[in-house]
């Protein structure tokens, strides 16, 4: 496979992982959002990855993409806060189902995966340059 093919595969992974990191940032930012545009508390969003063929043909390289973004339907905690405008009759407010600890672990995974793919690119690049050095 050519260096460009390696670049394309690793690039798809970099793009997918940065989309995942965007979602993690979104979840962490909304850890206290008791309301959302759709109504109700913010729901944690998760990226679902899927293998995708880059280019046509049977021998085409297989990269990765974010197939869809799903919402975590697990219920969040309910806290008693009657002063909150989004509290119900009993003074309970539904909190988002975001757990910062989970998000940080997910962030570490996404970050490590991103770095791994960067290493692939770096290695492919070094190999290409060393090959070009043969001509000198």
């Amino acid at each position, binding site marked *: 496979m050519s*260096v*460009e093919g390696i*670049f394309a595969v690793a*690039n798809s992974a*970099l*793009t997918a992982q*940065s989309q995942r990191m965007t979602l993690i940032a979104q979840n962490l930012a909304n850890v206290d959002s008791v309301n959302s545009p759709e109504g109700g508390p913010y729901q944690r969003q998760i990226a679902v990855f899927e293998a995708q063929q880059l280019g046509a043909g049977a021998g085409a390289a297989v990269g990765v993409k974010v197939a869809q973004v799903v919402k975590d339907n697990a219920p969040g905690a309910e806290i008693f806060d009657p002063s909150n405008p989004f509290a119900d009759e009993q003074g309970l407010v539904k909190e988002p189902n975001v757990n910062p600890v989970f998000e940080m672990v997910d962030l570490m995974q996404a970050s490590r995966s991103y770095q791994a793919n960067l290493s692939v*690119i770096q290695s492919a*690049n070094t190999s*290409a*340059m060393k090959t*070009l050095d043969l*001509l*000198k």
Partner: protein
Amino acid sequence: MSMNIITPLQGLPSLAPITPQPATTSPAGGFEQVLEQVSTVLENADQMAAGYAQGKVGLTDAVLASQTADTTFSLAMAIRNKALAAYQEIMSLSV
């Protein structure tokens, strides 16, 4: 003492006049086409960088396009240096 005139055994063959033939390949051996393709790759990297500045292209796409352009250009320069070295070696042959 008499001398015989040396008579030629046979006449010289008549030489066909040399007519110049047009070159079938370009003087640079098709290197212009390579350069044009390299130029296309460089332009693509340029557009990607501009696209990133405008927020249309992702960072990784722009960086990888730039890296590909760098590798491609290095390859073109290496080939050019190789060809030039070969030419200079031929030119320095003592005749």
